[in-house]
């Protein structure tokens, strides 16, 4: 047993027999030379090995391409994509809770369903339509424009416009006093001025 030069302390030599290793390496080298001599790694075998390697490489490349294509066709939807649609839907069970915020087990199932539908290539409209058919139109954040639902779209602008019109009329009436009353007011003021002038004149005379 010999310690390698430049190394000290407790080292491989305590567990490893370098002489044995050298013997093994020598035998391996000799074996390799023999195989060459005996033609075990002949030209034909090398060719076969090369063909096998090429085939394996091509198969691996094709498999990789197939996986990439498959994942491109059915990409896993992200949470943001799911929540974007869930935000347009309301929990059918809880009151006034958008599906993306709803913490219940039922809502989790519906979000999973949206994810599944997205991965199957469903469009946003198809998913919303499915939910409306399954759970009723009340799950839609934006009610369909049919029947009495039209009131939701028509009433607010009509009420706002009517309110604005009334406010405008009232403001105009407040800021512009009636002509008749203003004329009466100025006549009264003029009469008062005359009276004050005469009063002052009388006072001066008495002084």
């Amino acid at each position: 047993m010999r310690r390698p030069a430049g190394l000290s302390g407790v080292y491989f030599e305590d567990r490893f027999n370098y002489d044995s290793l050298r013997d093994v390496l020598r035998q391996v080298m000799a074996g390799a030379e023999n195989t060459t001599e005996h033609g075990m790694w002949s030209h034909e075998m090398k060719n076969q090995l090369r063909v096998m390697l090429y085939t394996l490489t091509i198969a691996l490349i094709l498999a990789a391409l197939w996986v990439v294509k498959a994942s491109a066709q059915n990409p896993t939807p992200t949470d943001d994509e799911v929540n974007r649609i869930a935000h347009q839907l309301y929990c059918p069970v809880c009151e006034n809770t958008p599906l993306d915020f709803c913490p219940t087990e039922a809502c989790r199932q519906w979000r999973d369903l949206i994810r599944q539908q997205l991965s199957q290539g469903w469009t946003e409209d198809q998913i919303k339509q499915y939910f409306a058919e399954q759970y009723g139109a009340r799950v839609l954040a934006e009610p369909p424009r049919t029947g009495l639902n039209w009131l939701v779209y028509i009433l607010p602008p009509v009420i706002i416009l009517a309110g604005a019109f009334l406010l405008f009329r009232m403001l105009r009436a407040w800021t512009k006093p009636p002509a008749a009353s203003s004329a009466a007011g100025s006549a009264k003021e003029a009469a008062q001025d005359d009276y004050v002038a005469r009063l002052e004149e009388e006072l001066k005379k008495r002084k």
Partner: protein
Amino acid sequence: MTENTNTPPRRGIPLRTQIVIWILLIGLLAIIAIELNRSQRGTVQPGEAIRDFTLPLYSGYEYEGQNEIRLSDLRGKVVFINFWASWCKPCEQEAPELVKAWEYYKPGGQVVFLGVDYVDTEPAARIYMKKFKITYPNGPDLGTRLAQLFRIKGVPETYFIDQNGALQYVQIGPFTSLQQIQSIIEPMLKK
């Protein structure tokens, strides 16, 4: 005193427009009142007439080989309509009792059990039905039409309809035993 004849005519909203506005306002208030009244009426009560309905059934849970079931086709039988959902924990509590009751009444053919899956997803519903070994006809309440028809307030709720199609009993909440279900069905069968 002399009357001022030069006063300009008073401008305002024409009478016809006022009438239209008032009619619209009254109509709107009437709609709100009807809806409020409807939402506060609670579930249908025994004695109230139940409108006919058709329930589509999940495959594997059909009724006599048909993939939908109509209430009017069940005249002459006691109909047990149970609203449930896979996300409903109290429903899980009563599910084994319902299965026991179905197994008890199924051979007689006088009682039809009908599960109405309320706002649920089919995969979750199937897992639930498999878990509790439910075999009686079950289907989804599409568009919550049946829930609105029965004006349910939650799940589980069960409605018992007699042989003449009249609602006899309403159970709000889960059943706790087979005997509880039997105590409702047996008197109906004796009629």
